[in-house]
């Protein structure tokens, strides 16, 4: 069952504080967070969060199309490398 709309999106308070502080300072830094359950809000766009996966913080560069998802979705807890073969990476 989906979350009631009247409650608004859930975000841990410390994530909001850290994001606000980082935005005010204007520094290029990774905001380390442990809250995988927090929703990505529009004010997080452009910031880089280090989302804990149980072992280390995975950098997550927040973009507009990620709004409404949870941070944990971008920080997998299991490792699978696969083969490089002809796979491509794009520098954004």
């Amino acid at each position, binding site marked *: 069952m989906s979350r009631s709309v009247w409650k608004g999106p859930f975000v841990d308070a410390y994530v909001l504080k850290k994001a606000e502080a980082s935005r005010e300072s204007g520094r*290029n830094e990774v905001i380390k967070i442990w809250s995988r359950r927090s929703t990505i809000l529009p004010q997080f766009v452009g910031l880089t969060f*280090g989302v804990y996966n149980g072992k280390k913080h995975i*950098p997550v560069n927040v973009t507009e199309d990620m709004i409404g998802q949870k941070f944990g979705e971008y920080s997998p807890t299991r490792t699978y490398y696969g083969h*490089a*073969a002809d796979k491509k990476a794009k*520098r954004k």
Partner: protein
Amino acid sequence: MTDLICVGAIAGAYGVRGEVRLKSFTADPLAIADYAPLTTRDGGRAFSVAIIRPVKGGFAARLSGVTTKEEADALRGTELYAPRDKLPSLPDDEFYHADLIGLVVLDTGGAELGRVKSVQNHGAGDLLEITGPGLKDSVLLPFTREAVPTVDLASGRLVADPPEGLFPE
């Protein structure tokens, strides 16, 4: 840059008519046939590939020179390689994982940070996994123009300007 790139492997025989079960590692699994002829790691054997149909865990395929089930069984576990030059050229700011892996990572001051171990993508953009003698654990660096301003494949190095807090002090 590596000359040969592993694009697939033979998982064993498929049926009794000399067909093989082929695992494809390419981004588009069917594209493995485009890189034929595929060779073994030592280059001792070369195969042309005809994909017959998709099966569980890969494709049923017919390889040139393999006509019996015994021959197909003998190839179980063989990795198949394609030459690097067979991959089509890419536009600016796009790179093959195979080209990025192994590059030396330097900071903007010219000090070595480590080497690229793998390229990952968990949905929030590509990440370079960097390992080095000075790093206790591997570090993931976002593959963006800000964090990686220079990629020089010819000299085998890239310049990183990582955000604060990514690399240990």
